[in-house]
């Protein structure tokens, strides 16, 4: 596979449309379902769809991370929260802002769609890279994990370290709030 073009097979297209449809339907269900627990399960559906999308984008490490963190940890935390608060509140009602919020979201979507389709993106497939550079690029996508680790340890080491402090702060904060008097 060259870096300039993704797998443009029919299978790829078909799978993409299936996954995309799945994710959009699941996302809609999150918003529309009355039962909070079912909505949470729909959310897990979205997470899983995104895992597939990441695989299709040659982002294996991210796909795994998505599966573990989102599909695993975050889903469990959310379901935990749902179960904890479930006995007093069953449904997932909406507030009075339905119509304006819908118009706002629709407007946002329209603008973003316009932006996406009217921007001159500098596509990799169209870039005039030297053959050696193309090979190097293909190599990166073929085995992205070590390259990604390298990036995290070099260019993005600052946010990486700060993120660890951030996680620590969040955990301490959450524990402080949960501690019994």
């Amino acid at each position: 596979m060259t870096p300039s073009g993704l797998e443009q097979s029919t299978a790829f297209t078909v799978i993409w449309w299936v996954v995309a449809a799945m994710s959009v339907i699941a996302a809609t269900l999150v918003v529309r379902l009355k039962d909070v627990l079912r909505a949470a399960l729909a959310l897990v559906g979205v997470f899983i769809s995104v895992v597939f999308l990441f695989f299709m984008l040659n982002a294996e490490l991210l796909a795994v991370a998505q599966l573990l963190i989102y599909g695993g940890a975050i889903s469990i935390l959310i379901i935990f929260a749902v179960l904890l608060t479930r006995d007093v509140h069953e449904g997932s009602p909406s507030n009075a802002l339905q119509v304006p919020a819908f118009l706002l979201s629709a407007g946002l979507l329209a603008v973003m769609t316009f932006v996406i389709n009217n921007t001159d993106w500098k596509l990799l497939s169209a870039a005039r890279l030297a053959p050696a550079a193309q090979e190097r690029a293909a190599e990166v996508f073929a085995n992205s994990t070590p390259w990604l680790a390298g990036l995290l340890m070099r260019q993005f080491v600052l946010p990486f370290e700060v993120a660890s402090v951030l996680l620590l702060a969040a955990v301490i904060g959450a524990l402080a709030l949960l501690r019994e008097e």
Partner: protein
Amino acid sequence: MVGLQHFLTLGAVIFAIGFFGAVTKRNLVVVLMCIELMFNAVNIVVVAMSRYLVPLAMQRAPDSTDAAVAQTLLTGQVFAVFVITVAAAEVALALGIVIAIYRTRRTADTNELKLMSR
């Protein structure tokens, strides 16, 4: 043919759905779920950009075989890594607060939180 625009549009759709839910939902946990939808949408967008777009370093040096330059292809994925991390931290904290609220109020409905909005 599926291309960059397809991924971006998909991201935009999920983002808009999440936004709609985050603004309209009354249950705190559901609002949190909708926010996670928005973060996932951002992740789809950045990872797709990472895959389809040529990063600046390669635009500048189209004939370079330098490992550092090639590596910048993955900047979008790094982006997603951090988004996932922050999302995890936020969910953990949110859970802590939701439970604290539940302890004092025994409800998780945003409309019940009327104490202050007179």
